[in-house]
């Protein structure tokens, strides 16, 4: 039962809103879908919003990290938004710092940040 995560296009950017808990297969499918979408649209920015997510384990963190690196290779900047306090604390305690990841509080601020980064 693999659900595919919807990816929306807004001008030059792709917007992904992750609405439910990610199982391993869905996460990997998402990675593939996003990269394909980047290819077909030549979008320069991606915002991935994780507001409804209440936990992220090391596997999902790795997939996210990979997505960011892969998107970078394809010429797109990624901003992760909406990481909840509980999730942030858990990730830090697990030892996952996600140092090179650009973050923002929510979708709106994420888009603003992307626009600033892309203009630079």
């Amino acid at each position, binding site marked *: 039962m693999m659900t595919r995560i919807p990816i929306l296009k807004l001008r030059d950017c792709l917007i992904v809103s992750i609405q439910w808990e990610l199982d391993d297969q869905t996460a990997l499918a998402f990675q593939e879908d996003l990269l394909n979408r980047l290819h077909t649209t030549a979008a320069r920015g991606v915002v991935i919003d994780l507001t409804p997510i209440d936990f992220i384990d090391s596997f999902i963190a790795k997939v996210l990290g990979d997505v960011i690196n892969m998107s970078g290779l394809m010429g797109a900047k990624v901003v992760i*938004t*909406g*990481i*909840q*306090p509980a*999730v*942030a*604390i858990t*990730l*830090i*305690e697990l030892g996952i*710092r*996600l140092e090179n*990841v650009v*973050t*923002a*509080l*929510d979708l709106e*601020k*994420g888009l603003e940040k992307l626009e600033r980064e892309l203009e630079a």
Partner: protein
Amino acid sequence: MNRLIARYIHENIDEILEKWKIKMEEEKDDRFFQVMSDQVIDHTAREFGELMISSLTEEKETYRGKLNEFSVQIVRFGWSVSFVLKTLSNFTEVIYENLEKAEYLNESNYKSYREILNNWLTPVTHSIVDAYSKVWEKTVSLQKIALQELSASLIPVFEKISVMPLVGTIDTERAKLIMENLLQGVVKHRAEVVLLDITGVPVVDTMVAHHIIQAADAVRLVGAKCMLVGIRPEIAQTIVTLGINLNDFTTTSTLQRGVEQALALTNRAIVEVNS
């Protein structure tokens, strides 16, 4: 033999008391007499004598009840525990000396007398120490709660800019609470820059630095930038000496500077208005 001792104490309590007071003075514990009124001293010493009699003659349960009451009462006086134990053992010594003088003791029975008195003193000591520890533990846990109530809150000083003043020592448990408060505040205030003010943190060692760095990492994940302000000269020295790496942080010495930088980061500045 127990009854003998009990009766002796009962009949000679006044003499015992006098000798005991002299012994206390000899030991140069005259603050004892300064702190407590003669009446209280007398009364307590007599109670102690009664307690001895009770242990020698009454049912174990009854004695235990009286011992408990006595211990709780003593703790309330607020004397140091070592002092209390000294006075108790002095009291016992006096009784032993007196029994010797009154020629109750001879070669065959002095060992048993000694044993009875020791067997008596030891549980009393335990009971007193126990009563003291209970009070100490209660105090510590109350202080712990009071400390936690000192919890820091995030203050939204400007739109997009919030400040959290940290005060006091930060142990692991407090650090967790602080981190939760901090993050929830960031989300609630929609802050883009957070200023952690450590002016009120007396010691920054590797453990505290670790907690601060963790908190800052978490803030970054949630989507805001974290700045460290209020770094006093001593703290700066300690941090460098200990080899703590805060290079990923933006730091300033005062909150004022920090706010100015935060404003700049969010494309704002404070300007004077011409009247």
